[in-house]
């Protein structure tokens, strides 16, 4: 396992290198240098412009510029954003990256859970109208024009029904006199979510491995305790209403992203289940007198999961693109929305910075998925 992960990490590092070189190449392929873009902006004083020229080394030979570009990337120095002048690109990205990560992770987890669960059922009820309708509606969701779908979600649930806010990250009216800024509340939320999932996961893994007979009770008790702890901590912070506001803003983008990406998993799961069902060990599991649900969940689905995860790794870039589109529809201030708006306002340093981070994000997600896969498949684990 260590060897496998080392190899994958090395490959991903090489990929990162090639990716950064590619970015450099793309940026330099256009006429003029980066500082020309700054020259067009009246907000940027000349001395800042000179500093930026130094930063990017525009007067140096090309190979030196390349090295400077790599160094800047690794030190997180992408220059100054002029649509957010005088904030630095790194500062803007530092604020927005967590928002993207949270949105993406929540939607991915939900869509995987939903898609895998439904795909299982579809495969088990092979043939007939059920399969036909689920395939057609699955494909429709998978290929639906995302902006339109997001728009319909906004129109239906926010505009007409008024259940949720129309896009954005928070409600400015509520936050005007807030004693705390949005990023701190968001950090609190991330820490809470992380801590809770860590505790719950640990309890589940331990009870499963130790073969405890009262596993279920332990799990329920631990979940109740975790919930109580969360309530207590948030009461002491006193920021519940603000967190609630952010949560409300999260619902629609998460739901949209989940719906457009779950169908792919569902269709894949169905195919993978159908292939696994023909394996001999499935017959063996039946012969052992296991109930049908155990055959399906413990044996067929567990094995069908492997190719689904592989394909999921393959389609990560596609999923991230989905996130980029969803963010810009819902004005969710994450990396995707930043990328689009920076591009539209010709804020080149921010656009390049955001793009580099979107790329790094895909790479890291890739690595995480690889680790997950290695954990799921004992043939790789050992």
């Amino acid at each position: 396992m260590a060897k496998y992960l080392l190899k994958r990490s090395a490959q991903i590092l090489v990929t990162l290198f090639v990716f950064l070189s590619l970015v450099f190449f793309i940026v330099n392929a256009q006429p003029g240098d980066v500082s020309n873009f700054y020259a067009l902006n009246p907000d940027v004083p000349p001395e800042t412009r000179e500093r930026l020229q130094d930063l990017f080394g525009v007067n140096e030979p090309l190979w030196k510029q390349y090295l400077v570009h790599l160094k800047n990337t690794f030190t997180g120095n992408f220059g100054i954003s002029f649509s957010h002048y005088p904030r630095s690109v790194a500062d803007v990205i530092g604020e927005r990256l967590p928002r993207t990560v949270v949105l993406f992770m929540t939607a991915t987890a939900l869509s995987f859970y939903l898609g895998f669960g439904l795909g299982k059922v579809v495969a088990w009820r092979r043939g007939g109208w059920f399969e036909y309708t689920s395939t057609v509606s699955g494909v429709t969701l998978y290929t639906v024009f995302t902006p339109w779908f997001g728009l319909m979600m906004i129109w239906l649930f926010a505009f007409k029904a008024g259940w949720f806010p129309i896009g954005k990250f928070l409600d400015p009216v509520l936050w005007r006199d807030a004693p705390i800024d949005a990023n701190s509340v968001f950090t609190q939320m991330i820490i809470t979510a992380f801590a809770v999932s860590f505790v719950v996961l640990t309890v589940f893994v331990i009870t499963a491995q130790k073969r405890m007979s009262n596993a279920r009770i332990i799990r329920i008790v631990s979940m109740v305790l975790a919930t109580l702890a969360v309530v207590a901590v948030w009461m002491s912070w006193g920021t519940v209403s603000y967190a609630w506001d952010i949560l409300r803003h999260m619902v629609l983008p998460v739901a949209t992203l989940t719906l457009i990406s779950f169908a792919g998993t569902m269709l894949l799961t169905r195919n993978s289940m159908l292939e696994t069902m023909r394996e001999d060990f499935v017959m063996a599991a039946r012969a052992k007198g296991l109930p049908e649900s155990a055959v399906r969940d413990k044996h067929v689905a567990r094995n069908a999961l492997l190719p689904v995860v592989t394909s999921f790794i393959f389609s990560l870039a596609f999923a991230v693109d989905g996130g980029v589109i969803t963010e810009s529809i819902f004005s969710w201030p994450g990396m995707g929305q930043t990328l689009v708006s920076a591009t539209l306002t010709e804020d080149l340093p921010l656009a390049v910075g955001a793009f580099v981070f979107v790329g790094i994000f895909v790479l890291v997600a890739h690595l995480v998925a690889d680790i997950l896969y290695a954990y799921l498949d004992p043939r790789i684990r050992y």
Partner: protein
Amino acid sequence: MATVNAQPAVPSSVWRARLRLASRSVRENWGLFVRTRIGLLGLAIIAMYALLAVAHPVLMSTVWEPRIYDPVIGYAFDETKQPAPPSLKHPLGTDPLGRDILSQLMFSARSEFLLGLLAATVTVVIGTSVGAIAAYFGGWVDTILMRLADIMIMMPAISVLIVLSALIGVEHFELALLIGILSGFGATGVVLKSQALSVVVKPYIDAARSAGGGHFHIILVHIVPNLLPLSFLYMMFTVTSAIFSEAVLSFLGLLNVRMSWGLMIHTTESAGYLLQVAEFWWLIFPASLSITLLCSAFYLVGRSLDEVVNPRLRSR
């Protein structure tokens, strides 16, 4: 020297035999394709849009007056208020700039098809070459091509296009090229390589090699034809992603195109009608549904081709 002299004759007869076999297998596979049902649904939708695309120039030169109906510079002088709701003269109404929606829709269909076709062709040419070459030569050629594929697979295509549109300005041609390169060197190349691997080990490749066939000759005559069914399938998926990407980019206003389905929604958005879905439905639904339908259609065709090519998925 004899083998060299004999060679020109071989390809033509091989190709003729292959053509005969192909026409038979097409007939058999058509039966399988029909049985999946979803493939026919896809074909019907594609046919409908193809018809719209073909009909547009005909209508423009006969019944539709260009001054009014031109999809880009036309203006519906016959309507008092823009955007106008659907009427007999304008079956899908007009847009905020007074242009006929149906005409825009039909005009764009053609460019969507051209875009999809170009992207798919680039994908297949690159993907087939990459697959065949990587499988045939193996070794470091294979390693380099597959590492490159890893990188392509990890490229978020739309994000790349967004950045490129800021730097160099992207039109349909560049878009198709880029989608084709990403897919051909990426996922399609990988899939076709694994298919090519199963061909390379066949005895007739050895036979061709010992008969003195050159690398290029063997790849072109013996390996590539065996990859064609699978690459045809991946063409369908590429068309889907090309149309989808085009729509997203032009919706965001990042593409230099005169008219497209994505741009129609962009126009709606910049005119501020985006959330008046019920009141101005014709500004949103025709274009959005067209994008979704055509993407789904190509995807459905690809999916049922998958069931034809991949017997493990077939129901017994």
